[in-house]
């Protein structure tokens, strides 16, 4: 999923002169639709951009499991308990898959997964804005599956042809599973929408709360909004195809009609489709708040990170017991 505004920096590739030829060959390859493999030559900003993108994507899958996990033991039926457990397991699996891809890219720097986890806990590595938000009712478990995964499908399918082979292949598998996630979420939402007054109430309340975070999901339209944006670099390097705003429009196109047909509303009276401009017009979310959220100053940032930290510290003795030195002793 996952946008790029944290990365900053200029758009000019930082290529030493003697590598200019390699750089041109590299660009020719990706422009011809070829895939780059881990041992191939690649420009430094390509590698670093990918490391940031993929480790953020991977860690967001893992942090993204936490909001739903809050409702997993509480899911209201056996079937829902099984469904949400399977879904959370998939997300952890996505995290695993992606962190392996990131680890490969990090090898030249002598870094590994341990460093990724430490960067997360120190705040150097960001995770996606939606996963800083609280969950309050069972409806949130449905909302995450339906609209957060729905948004993820839109941004991930946009990268299905990414120029970096290992990432592109991981995304193929992830996107297949995401389809089931969206169905799982939609089934929870349908049951609530067709349910009792209480169920419809928690559903609408949940959507109201998630709406700004869903708009923020795709990141700001341009660098003007938050100062930096790397979306153009990622498009140039053929990682993604569309801009943040194009993705957001695709999301609104797909989901707003469904939202309305369920009798739900969004907390934005101005939202409408402009026939002339052929796009959805909506009230901008508070992008300053967005900046705060991804700096780990969101409503649940501290608690979610704390959960990871406790798990990490608490299992230190297990990691030590599994280390090669311990097993060989």
């Amino acid at each position, binding site marked *: 999923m996952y946008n790029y505004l944290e990365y900053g920096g200029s758009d000019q590739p930082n290529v030493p002169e003697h590598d200019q030829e390699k750089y041109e060959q590299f660009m020719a390859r990706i422009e011809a639709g070829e895939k780059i493999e881990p041992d191939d030559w690649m420009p430094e900003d390509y590698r670093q951009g990918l490391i940031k993108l993929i480790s953020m994507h991977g860690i967001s899958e*893992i942090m993204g*499991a*936490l909001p739903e*996990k*809050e*409702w*997993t*033991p*509480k*899911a*209201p*039926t*056996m079937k*829902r*308990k*099984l469904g949400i*457990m*399977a879904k*959370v*397991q998939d997300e*952890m*699996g996505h*995290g*695993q898959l992606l*962190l392996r891809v990131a680890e490969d890219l990090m090898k030249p720097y002598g870094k590994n997964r341990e460093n990724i986890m430490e960067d997360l806990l120190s705040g150097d590595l960001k995770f996606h804005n939606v996963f800083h938000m609280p969950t309050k009712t*069972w409806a949130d478990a449905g909302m995450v599956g339906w609209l957060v995964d729905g948004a993820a499908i839109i941004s991930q399918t946009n990268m299905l042809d990414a120029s970096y082979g290992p990432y592109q292949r991981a995304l193929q598998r992830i996107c297949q599973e995401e389809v089931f996630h969206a169905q799982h979420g939609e089934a*929870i939402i349908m*049951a609530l929408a067709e*349910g*009792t007054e*209480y*169920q419809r109430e928690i559903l609408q309340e949940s959507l109201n709360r998630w709406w700004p975070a869903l708009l923020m999901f795709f990141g700001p339209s341009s660098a003007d909004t938050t100062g930096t944006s790397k979306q153009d670099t990622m498009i140039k390097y053929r990682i993604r195809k569309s801009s943040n705003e194009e993705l957001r429009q695709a999301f609104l196109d797909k989901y707003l009609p469904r939202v309305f047909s369920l009798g739900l509303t969004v907390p934005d009276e101005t939202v409408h489709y402009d026939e002339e401009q052929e796009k959805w017009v909506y009230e901008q979310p508070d992008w300053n708040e967005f900046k705060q959220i991804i700096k780990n100053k969101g409503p649940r940032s501290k*608690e979610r990170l*704390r*959960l990871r930290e*406790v*798990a990490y510290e*608490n*299992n230190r*003795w*297990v*990691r*030590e*017991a*599994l280390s090669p030195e*311990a*097993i060989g*002793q």
Partner: protein
Amino acid sequence: MTKVTSAQEAMNDDVYLKALTDLLYQLADDDFLISFRGSEWLGLAPHIEEDVAFSSITQNTMGHALMYYRLLEDLSEGEADALAHERDPSSRRNAVYFEKKNGEGEYLTEPYYDWALAVVRNFLYESFKKVKLEALTKSSYTPLANIAGKVLMEQPYHLSHWKIWFKQLNNSTDEAKTKLQSRLEEAWQQFGDVLELGEYATELEHFDIISGEDDLKERFIQEVESTVKDIRDISFGKAFGSGREGDHTPDLDQALNTLAEVYRSDEKAVW
């Protein structure tokens, strides 16, 4: 012993029905509580690969609980979800050790869960479950024998997963060994009712619904012996009574309040 091939037939004999029903609650509640505790671990396992594997075992286990609740549904005990979510603590038949919390803290805040407890409990649980399932494949109640046969197919994977963990940690650092050993000692103090069959133990054996307690215990010891050498010297205590007869701890209340929170929030709702 003649076979009982359907719920209808089982319901013809009152004593048979009572004994069978009680055993099915034991089976269902054991699997349900173990898988509930597993679901609390989600996202907190020592590494991501383990999280994925543990979760898949937990889902299988909860699936098994559901199969047993459905057998109870067939015996007119009520709807599976109601049986899982509505029954009060005193009617639960899981062994007390399986309701025990995963460690200090709660899954939502400061979960200081203990991986040594997870490894010891799940290893013992899967060992015991294997023995019980093998006995159940010969059950006079054929719907149960059929399910036991199916569940048994997943058992080698579950058991070996936890056995490997146990052996690895037990052959590693002193800290790991100490942690495992102290969790083992704790287990033995509470394990007595795991190996019991409850109020209808005699009838269950008499009707060949499952083999007797002594036989199950001996087979359990044989199963675990290769991993836990001194198991023959152990006496199994019942520090918190017998869950098979409705004794339970506050840990079960915490489990039920959590797992039924949404279910109870609107009694008319279909979820």
